[in-house]
């Protein structure tokens, strides 16, 4: 039997809908604000035989594009080899081991087989970022770990739910090893319930169209997604396109890590070769292979947003295994920075290569950092400890049509930053300002967006500040003649003395006391095209709005303008 175009499209939409409903159910019922507010989670459907991606929710965190197909594949292999107990109905496995197809330890995956007629039809899997997974640093973002054991609890695939019931022993082991454990039961139930939502929707689809038809449709959709990606690639001129990006340092050794990328376009495939990139590093800025792959996929998805996410779309993207580099970390290399920062540098390398191949589709480099500032301390008024995270955005790169957005979310995220008022309600801090970082957008025909400039003061008690950011050494790259965006800056004012982290964007456990301040300037986006080609009237408007000073207008764009003194 052959599938008609209508049935095919209908099944595609139904599978997508099932994933979107899982995403929604998960984040609306989660406890962890990182899942509930920041949508740091993802849900998808995976093939029974090899875990390859069938469909994934559109609202999932971009860094998880394709990641769960690696953990699901590993799980399937381990079950086959007898290294893992075989599944029974309503079992749910839990896994967070980075080296078994993951990201960092905080990203905890659930996987559940979907049974039809006594056989596994497919797997449903989701990932949620837990607020803590044990380890040396609350929250898990260590800037200086040198082995994965320091980063937290590592779970191989084990059954957390057995025939539908939560295993109290495994649960007890987990909660004994993590901080703020009492709320995890809520997240665990939410994460499991989302999989059941997906299963119910999937059963409806299977009952209606028949298992055989849906199986055929999945194969055909995969084939067509590959065709679609190949069609996009074929339109690019054959050749080798080079990209480059730097991680400031690994947090331990003060030396930049280099990502070298050569993208070869030939016919209808793209081959990504990271040969020549830096070797594995001592600190936590290593990336596991699954994360390296998904970073390439998410960058290509940003470039071709209308190609659906599925294993088929990934087929024409050939990634040579970057053996011997920090992009293919092996046990026990520490990896806590891989999902948040290294992934974005990999994407930046892809953008910087591809903007030459596709100047109309690709932007200059975005700020590309999650801007992770953590502060842990004790609030003497409330009589309890606290851990806060300030994630922040930065400028996006200019592009063929427009200036970059200001204060956009990280490349790999879609989360909102918390309101100042909520932060001040929750923690003993006060923001002295929270404003656009003037002048930070890279000059260009279309300039980069502006970064953020904020200053936080500790009001009482003592605390320790940690930073895992990036782009402190080199700003986000300009493209096609555009200039780089401003670099990330961190200054801690202790007793009025300015302290700048030695690694610029990374440092752990800086002691602070009441009255001390942290000031952060996040990167601006890279400029696109020559600054001299920017419309002088637009430059004067930028000056009137205070985005640049008159002096900058003259220096960067060669446009005479008078400063606007009003505003503050």
């Amino acid at each position, binding site marked *: 039997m052959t599938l008609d*175009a*209508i049935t095919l*499209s*209908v099944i595609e*939409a139904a599978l997508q*809908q099932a994933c*979107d*409903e899982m995403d929604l159910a998960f984040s*609306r*019922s*989660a*406890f962890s*604000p990182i899942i*509930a507010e920041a949508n740091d989670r993802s849900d998808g459907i995976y093939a029974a035989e090899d875990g390859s991606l069938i469909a994934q929710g*559109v609202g999932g965190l971009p860094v998880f594009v394709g990641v769960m197909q690696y953990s699901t594949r590993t799980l399937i292999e381990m079950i086959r080899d007898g290294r893992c107990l075989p599944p029974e109905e309503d079992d749910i496995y839990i896994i967070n081991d980075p080296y078994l197809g993951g990201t960092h330890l905080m990203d905890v995956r659930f996987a559940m087989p979907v049974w039809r007629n006594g056989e596994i039809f497919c797997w449903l899997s989701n990932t949620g970022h837990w607020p803590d997974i044990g380890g040396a640093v609350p929250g898990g973002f260590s800037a200086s770990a040198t082995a994965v054991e320091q980063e937290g609890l590592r779970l191989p695939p084990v059954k957390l739910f057995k025939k539908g019931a939560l295993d109290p022993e495994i649960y007890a082991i987990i909660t004994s090893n993590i901080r703020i454990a*009492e*709320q995890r*039961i*809520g997240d665990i139930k939410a994460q499991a*319930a989302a999989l059941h939502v997906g299963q119910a929707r999937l059963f409806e689809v299977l009952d209606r169209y028949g298992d055989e038809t849906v199986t055929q449709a999945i194969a055909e959709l995969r084939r067509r*997604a590959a*065709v*679609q990606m190949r069609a996009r690639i074929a339109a690019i001129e054959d050749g080798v396109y080079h990209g480059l990006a730097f991680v400031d340092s690994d947090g331990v050794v003060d030396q930049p890590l280099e990502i070298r990328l050569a993208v070869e376009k030939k016919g209808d495939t793209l081959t990504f070769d990271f040969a020549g990139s830096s070797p594995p590093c001592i600190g936590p800025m290593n990336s596991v292979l699954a994360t390296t792959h998904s970073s390439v996929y998410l960058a290509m*998805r*940003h470039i071709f*947003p*209308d*190609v659906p996410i599925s294993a088929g779309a990934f087929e024409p993207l050939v990634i040579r295994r970057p053996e011997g580099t920090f992009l293919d970390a092996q046990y026990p290399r520490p990896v806590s920075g891989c999902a948040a920062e290294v992934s974005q540098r990999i994407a930046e390398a892809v953008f910087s290569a591809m903007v030459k191949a596709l100047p109309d589709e690709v*932007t200059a480099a*975005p700020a590309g950092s999650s801007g992770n500032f953590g502060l842990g301390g004790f609030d003497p008024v409330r009589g309890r400890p606290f851990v806060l995270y300030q*994630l922040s*955005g930065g400028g*996006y790169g200019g592009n063929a*049509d*427009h200036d970059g*957005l*200001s*204060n*956009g*979310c990280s*490349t790999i995220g*879609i*989360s*909102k930053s918390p*309101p*100042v*008022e*909520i932060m*001040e309600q929750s923690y003993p801090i*006060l923001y002295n*300002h*929270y*404003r*656009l970082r003037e002048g930070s957008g890279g000059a260009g025909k279309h300039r980069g967006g502006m970064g953020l400039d904020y200053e936080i003061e500790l009001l009482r008690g003592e605390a320790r500040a940690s930073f895992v950011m990036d782009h402190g050494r080199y700003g986000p790259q300009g493209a096609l003649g555009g200039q780089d965006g401003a670099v990330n800056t961190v200054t801690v004012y202790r007793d009025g003395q300015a302290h700048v982290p030695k690694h610029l964007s990374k440092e752990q456990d800086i002691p602070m006391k009441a009255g001390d301040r942290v000031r952060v300037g996040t990167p601006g986006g890279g400029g696109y095209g020559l600054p001299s080609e920017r419309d002088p009237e637009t430059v004067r408007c930028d000056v*009137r*709005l205070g*985005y640049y000073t008159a002096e900058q207008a003259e220096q960067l764009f060669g446009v005479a303008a008078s400063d606007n003194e*009003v*505003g*503050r």
Partner: protein
Amino acid sequence: MIEKDAAKGTVAGIDVGGTFTDLLLIDGAEDGRVRIAKVPTTVDNQAFGVVAALEATGKAVSDIDLIVHGTTTTTNAVLERRLARAGMITTAGFRDVIELGRRTRPQPYGMTGVFVPVIPRDLRLEVPERMEASGNVRIPLDEQAVRKAVQHLLDAGCESLVIHFLHAYANPAHELRAAEIARSMWPNEHVTTGHSLLSEAREFERGVTAAVNASVQPILKRYIGRLADELNARGYARDFLVMNGNGGMISARFVTEEAAKTVMSGPASGVMAAAYTARRAGFPHVVTYDMGGTSTDVALIRNARPAVSNEIEIEYAMPIHVPMVDVHTVGAGGGSIARIDDAGLIRVGPDSAGATPGPICYGRGGTEPTVSDANLVLGRLNPNRLLAVDNPVSVEAVTDIFAERIGRRAGLDGVGAAGAVLKLGNLKMAGAIRMVSVAKGHDPRDFALFAFGGAGPLHAAALARELSIPKVIVPARPGITNALGCVVADMRHDFVRTVNVPVAEIDEAELAAILATQADEGRALIAKEAVKPQTLRFVHSADMQFVGQTHLINVALPSATVSAAELQSLFEAAYFARFKVSLPEIRANLVNLNTSVIGERRQIDLSLLIDPAGRLATLADAQTGARPVWFDGSWIETPVYAREKLPLSATITGPAILEQLDATTVVEPGDRVTQDADGNLIIEVGA
């Protein structure tokens, strides 16, 4: 003062839509005779269209007792960014709050996008002052700086002003004092304080809500003034009512103060009419389905009450956080363009042909096949009855375009391709309905689908089948549903009070006192209105969560006095219904207490909307012809009826087409249609 809304007054409901201004007048002097008018909307000054609609009824404007009005003045101003010049004064260090947003991008994938703040940066000034989260003053207000800033914004030509200070929801003293200073200098009343519309934490959302309010105030004020003048000149000197986005009416005298509340006026009136009509027809639970040219609005109604949300974002990074009817919009409508993508899959939307060039069948230059064109090709729409056609295009020509643009690559002929487009368009709309129902824990089988708007009844029966919704309601006059909403809507005021306390620590007396105060405030506001409602209704609810969560769920409260134990069990039941999760391990938290005070106006007998005299004796008499219509893969010769002439007692078995002036209802094979006393079609969806 109007004393005649009760009993026998003459009421006119007028809705200004994008294309047409619709009017529904119920004449008290003639035993409730109904008059209807549909005139083109006058875009530059909507008041002319309103007056034209009133005059088209033939009834003297001076003889009307009450005019109730739904307007898109502020909606258009916001969406087209034709805003008044507004200035903003903020806490020092925070003038960029409404430009920085919450670090987002418009779509999950694609690192591009454009964002223009509602108030430009050079009109946002800072003054020294600072409240702490506790409401304590950290830095006193610099009054001299306020004066200077106000003067600067006046000199810069601002028409309206926003004062937006950090933590003003906790202590509004600085905002109030700054506003007092500003009002002494400002030439008009357009001074908005951030905390007055939305007294909740979240400086971006509160600031944008206030900025939108200020930016539309002068526009709404001018419009209301022009309309009042026009009405005055025709002898109507009374107050009139305006529809707010929460589905309640407010006096035109007060509406500009909180102008942002009118931004969703249009969709709200449609949903209110649907709730009213469906309740009379015996359907308290409905999903409304309003399909237009470029988009489709759906909303959920339970127990005859539309869901209301405080968290609507009307476009990218433009939240308006005031209570509004929770309407979910998807970019699929009659004008949605169908294409084939690189993978050979058929896609419908999100691009739309809009009104110009429009679908091919309207002959206004449209060349790309749309959902409306598919309906034409498939015999669902009658080519001779399309409204507003410039140059007629033959059905054959449209079919050929489907064959060429879509069919060729999908292996389908023109009709097959049109069938596929219809099916996929329906699927997309069905997805939107799922997101407001199934995805929120509601079973569609408990609901009826209420179809209105020009195109809703064309698709409703097919959609209901897709969603397992057992029944479809098509009101007597689907094309004037919004105007009906104006006639039947109540007066309404909503109150939210944040308490944020674990249920175990609740002071039950204080809780009751808060709800009672909210009720009193609403009662006082309604008492100020010229129109007197017949009864007052108080609806209490609580927004709750488990301790540690950030999302809230709304829990209806049976009365203003509830015990902590009751709250706990109501919440647990609501949470389980929504997520199928129970969490005895974790404590519940009460975040907000809400009260809506609803002034119920007189009931309108909807059977007035149909004219029994025009009904013919038999079904056969009402049949105007027959034509082949494509149903799921084959042509079926289908009878066509004049809907207004159907005997009310008739039962029709699908397939059938029911035509009326501004809407066509498609009844699918196996469906069964009956009518009720109000002239609603009730379609029982076949298996």
